[in-house]
């Protein structure tokens, strides 16, 4: 009915200003657009909202058997947020993400700046840099698990026997931490490098020529021409790398299994232990929601700070 009216008003030939006024009134009332949004609503509901609500449902109940359950309110949230093991894992994960960002972002930008701008070497460089990104997570874990071993691994053996430094990631927590961090740097710095490279490629040549004519130094050229142009892609890179590293699971699970002791047991590893290992659905549900919330909040803070500082 309303859409019919809108069409009639549009078809009518009336003086311009009048028509404009009417259009402003009537245009938003065309409800057919909702049909176009419907498929998205349905797919999001089934893939995100309903599973999430299931978790919410678990998190407020103590479940003994599928038929025997009691409502406990926010008790699980309280106990999870006070759990020293969870808190330690949270701080550990936060530290890991911070280190990942501090290493990968500058390193990725540095690689991008050094990559060739034109010629045949461009495709060679791109393939070489992108290689780690093409390897599945658990394979990366396996590669590093073997690579870092002191007895048969190339890396571990070299450190132990050539450099003469005792290195054993299955016994020493620092060694395990370094192994996992290095593995993430190896696996994901290429992503940052590729994003940054794409950003750098979009800078027209005259900018560099103008800097050359000014006799600007390489650092000044980077600081005043390249870096400002990288703001957008680096915002995305920081967000992606934060979210991903904060939720890291597969690689440390394969390499260290969270050990030695608790040295590399990040939030995700602890969560899967509670949810899948012990099958404590209530606490695991509360844990998942808190985890989700933390990722959301930190990402939001990052995004806001990074986009605001540009103005």
């Amino acid at each position: 009915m309303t859409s019919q009216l809108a069409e009639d008003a549009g078809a009518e030939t009336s003086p311009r200003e009048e028509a404009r006024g009417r259009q402003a009134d009537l245009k938003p009332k065309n409800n057919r657009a909702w049909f176009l949004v419907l498929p998205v609503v349905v797919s999001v509901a089934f893939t995100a909202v309903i599973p999430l609500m299931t978790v919410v449902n678990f998190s407020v109940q103590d479940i003994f058997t599928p038929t025997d359950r009691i409502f406990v309110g926010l008790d699980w949230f309280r106990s999870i947020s006070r759990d020293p093991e969870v808190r330690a894992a949270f701080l550990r994960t936060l530290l890991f993400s911070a280190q990942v960002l501090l290493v990968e972002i500058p390193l990725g930008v540095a690689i991008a700046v050094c990559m060739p701008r034109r010629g045949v070497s461009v495709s060679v460089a791109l393939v070489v840099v992108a290689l780690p990104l093409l390897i599945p997570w658990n394979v990366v874990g396996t590669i590093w698990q073997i690579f870092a071993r002191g007895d048969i691994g190339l890396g571990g053996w070299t450190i132990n026997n050539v450099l003469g430094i005792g290195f054993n990631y299955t016994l020493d927590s620092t060694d395990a931490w370094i192994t996992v961090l290095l593995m993430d740097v190896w696996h994901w710095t290429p992503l940052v490098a590729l994003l940054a490279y794409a950003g750098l490629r979009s800078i027209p040549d005259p900018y560099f020529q103008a800097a050359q004519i000014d006799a600007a130094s390489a650092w000044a050229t980077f600081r005043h021409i390249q870096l400002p142009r990288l703001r957008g892609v680096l915002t995305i890179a920081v967000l992606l790398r934060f979210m991903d590293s904060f939720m890291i699971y597969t690689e440390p699970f394969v390499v260290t299994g969270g050990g030695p002791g608790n040295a590399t047991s990040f939030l995700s590893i602890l969560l899967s232990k509670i949810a899948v290992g012990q099958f404590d659905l209530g606490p695991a549900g509360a844990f998942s929601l808190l985890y989700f919330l933390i990722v959301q909040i930190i990402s939001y803070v990052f995004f806001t700070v990074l986009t605001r500082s540009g103005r």
Partner: protein
Amino acid sequence: MALVLDGVCVRQRDEIWLDDINLELSSGMTVLIGPLGAGKTTLMRVVAGLHPPGAGRVIVDGKDVASISVRKRSVAFVYQQFINYPSLTVHENIASPLRLDRAFPKDQVDRRVGEVAELMGIGDLLPRRPSELSGGQQQRTAIARALARPVDVLLLDEPLANLDYKLREQLRGDLKSMFGQSKGVVLYSTSDPAEALGFAAPTVVLGEGRVRHVGDAADMYDRPPTLAVAATLSDPPLNLLPGVVRDGWIECMGASFEAPRAHARAERVVLGVRPHQVSIEGAGPGALAFPAEIRLAEVTGSATFLHLLLRGGTHLVAQLPGTRLFTPGQQATAYVDPAHVLVFDEAGGDLLASSTAEVDLHG
């Protein structure tokens, strides 16, 4: 200050970008005009040192600058795109070449920035960043950046091409007065004849990587030495009609007029007729008359461009003063006074006769 290009060639693989360029430019402004792909930008890049010449020498003030790197040369470059440091304010942008120039006294930087900004009319925009400026203001900043440091050679590569019409007119006027008293060599490239004519500076016509002609733009417009120069300097474009020389007469699509003396040697000629020299009302005796069909009338306000289709399929555009209304398909007759026809040799494109040549003869 003098800039000399001596046999400069640039080849990229098999393509010739610049072919044996010989030029001598003195202090003050020189306009470099040519169509797209004529080699204007390449020539400027060679002068700036951004592109090595394949052969030949670039001599600034008697010194061959081939071995001096771009960073050490005393040049400034303004691009067609608005190139400024995005993270710096307008003030810092203009100051940047001064700060990097060791010879420039540091305590003078702020004063000089203010001076140049005032000159370019952006004095009140100094604390802003380029992204907060309009296109015209951004280009004014870029030009101010180039003007700030006294340089031997200032290169402007179609600086106004990306600006809108009104701003272009305004900035063109400002630049003209600014470069008039310049001590260095100012090389200004453009593809717009109105700019070349408006600056009234020595003009170099470039085409297909070669220097077509050097001279005064107005002179070249009145008496273009070749068809290529005439085409480069004509806006609206020149109408071209085929002609044949026979027994001292030039025949052109059914009409004929007495051939200007001296050039009976060419058999086939090309007649260049400027759109504003074509009329559709009765003209004086001896005018060439071409029956035509009206295809299109473009009204710009002060003029009406009438597109005519002549017999034989040749196109002719007439520029009529004022706003005139026509119906497409209407029949009309186009009149051209032979005194205003430029006659070019079809083979080489050389000018055989022009209106001013005739006037000179009589006067």
